[in-house]
């Protein structure tokens, strides 16, 4: 089975969770979107995904969660080999400077989106980071050309030499 790429959204307030998922709906056709309302549930979902030999391309994570907080989840993901390549984004209004710095330094945080967010910003950063992920981790970028940054993917095909004449 060809590996699928997942987008994981972690947010404890249901309306906010739905709102995020609605905003990134255009990526649904090519990426699987999974939701969790706690870090612990997220970890379970991550384990299932990895057990099925799929990949997690992007995680959009709130910081203040019941139980483990978002930054700690991201740091653990960074430490684990299979979730290290995942692009990590915080969507929150409540992470202080210290925690944000920790996320950047220890979790390789790719982007910080402050609540309330603009749909355009969320969609753009999702597209950019998923494009980064596909270029780094996927051998066949062709099928994502329509939903991701086609220019960059085409350039990657040109220089990466994955596809050749046959």
């Amino acid at each position, binding site marked *: 089975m060809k590996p699928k790429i997942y987008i994981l959204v972690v947010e404890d307030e249901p309306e906010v969770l739905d709102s995020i998922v609605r905003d990134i709906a255009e990526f649904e056709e090519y990426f699987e979107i999974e939701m969790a309302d706690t870090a612990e549930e997220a970890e379970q979902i991550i384990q299932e995904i990895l057990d099925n030999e799929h990949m997690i391309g992007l995680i959009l994570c709130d910081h203040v969660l019941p139980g483990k907080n978002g930054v700690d989840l991201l740091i653990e993901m960074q430490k684990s080999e299979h979730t290290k390549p995942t692009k990590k984004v915080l969507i929150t209004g409540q992470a202080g400077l210290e925690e944000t710095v920790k996320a950047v330094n220890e979790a390789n945080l790719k982007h910080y989106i402050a609540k309330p967010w603009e749909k355009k910003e969320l969609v753009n950063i999702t597209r950019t980071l998923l494009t980064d992920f596909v270029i780094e981790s996927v051998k066949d970028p062709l099928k994502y050309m329509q939903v991701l940054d086609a220019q960059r993917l085409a350039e990657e095909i040109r220089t990466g030499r994955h*596809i*050749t004449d*046959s």
Partner: protein
Amino acid sequence: MEKTKAVGLILGIIGFIIPLMIQIPGLSLAGHLAMSIFILAAIFWMFETIPIYSTSILVIFLEVILLSAEGLISHTDASYSPVAYTQFVATLADPIIILFLGGFVLADAAVKYNFDRNMSRILLKPFGTDPKYIILGLMAVTAVLSAFMSNTATTAMMITVIIPILAKTDISDPARISIALCIPFAANIGGVATPIGTPPNAVVIAALNQQGVGIEFGSWMLYAMPLAIVMLIVAWYLLLKLHPPATSTLNLDLKGEWMKNRKAYTLYIVFALTVILWISESLHGIRSSIVALFPVAVLTLTNTFEKEDIRKLPWEVLWLIAGGISLGIAMKETGLADWVIGSIAWDQMGYLLLLSLFGVVAIVLSNFLSNTVTASLMIPLGISLATSGIIEGPASILIIGLVIALSTSFAMVLPISTPPNAIAVSTGVVKTKDMIVAGSLIGAVAMILIILMTRFYWPYIL
């Protein structure tokens, strides 16, 4: 394993066993084994049970252990004198492979130093702002580049050029379809113009060389380039008719800069020199395979092309070609090719009809199969047709070779027909049905032209 691959595996194994269970009169044991290998290879290639380059290596491996003098089977049949295993293995370094290696090094170096992109920028400038002529320009540039680089790499690069153009056009403008389709078509068409344009050319030229028929670089261009030029114009005209642009101006606005460091200049000079040496082979007499060593040597010794670049070369394409060449050797030496040709009553068919049949089968098959594989499967049979005298005339081997090579390149009907087609469809701008319509028309016209050339052009210049 996926269903189709599993089916291919089973059919392939059955296909391999069948010739071993029957006794065909007039065919040596080696011929039966060659038939087993041929059927296994054809099925594995068709179903892609294993990667196609893998099948090619499997072919060489099976030939060595089953057909060679040093293999597991001792051939006592008088009609087959066992081929030394080195002959099968040596296909991996056939002069044609070296020629293609030189081409690949030049092409990859061109990409590394953005030579391809900068060339396309310059070549596109004179074409102005009228969408009709911009499309012509895109096609001309793509074709010229893909004559020297792989069709796929050229397509990938030109897609990066057209994406900003597409972003500026209105979504309902049919010009978008013309623009997106013209790239893979032009890339495939341009690939026929030179020996290094596309791998099927390699398999055919190598097979002809085995028969003692050599083709110079410039000679191939003389035979094939007129077809490429005419078909380019035909395809352009056709695309404009099918999808006429709605707007009257398109601003290309191409950005980029020429790299100006020592290594880039080295590349520019070596590239130009190599092409000149190749094209002028009839003047200086140095074989194109030998010329091909020049860029490989100079670019690597000046560190313009480094170890990582060498590792990224498409070695699997060279394996693919080598497998095809070795299959041809096996079929010829064991007498299988002659036997296949001998078993069919060709005398009922006229010369032109026979050539057309080969051409049509080649173009139809390679719409579904890799072009190189189609050429590999058909050229041994085509050559046998010529050597057994069924097709007559001194140039018959050359003509049948050209028919097969050129026909495979005009198979552009489906996204799976060639990688450039797949890349174009992946942009989402082109629907498969647009490609089917345009590709079929172009393929049909090309087929007619090729057959006309066998009668009215090639016999007079060969």
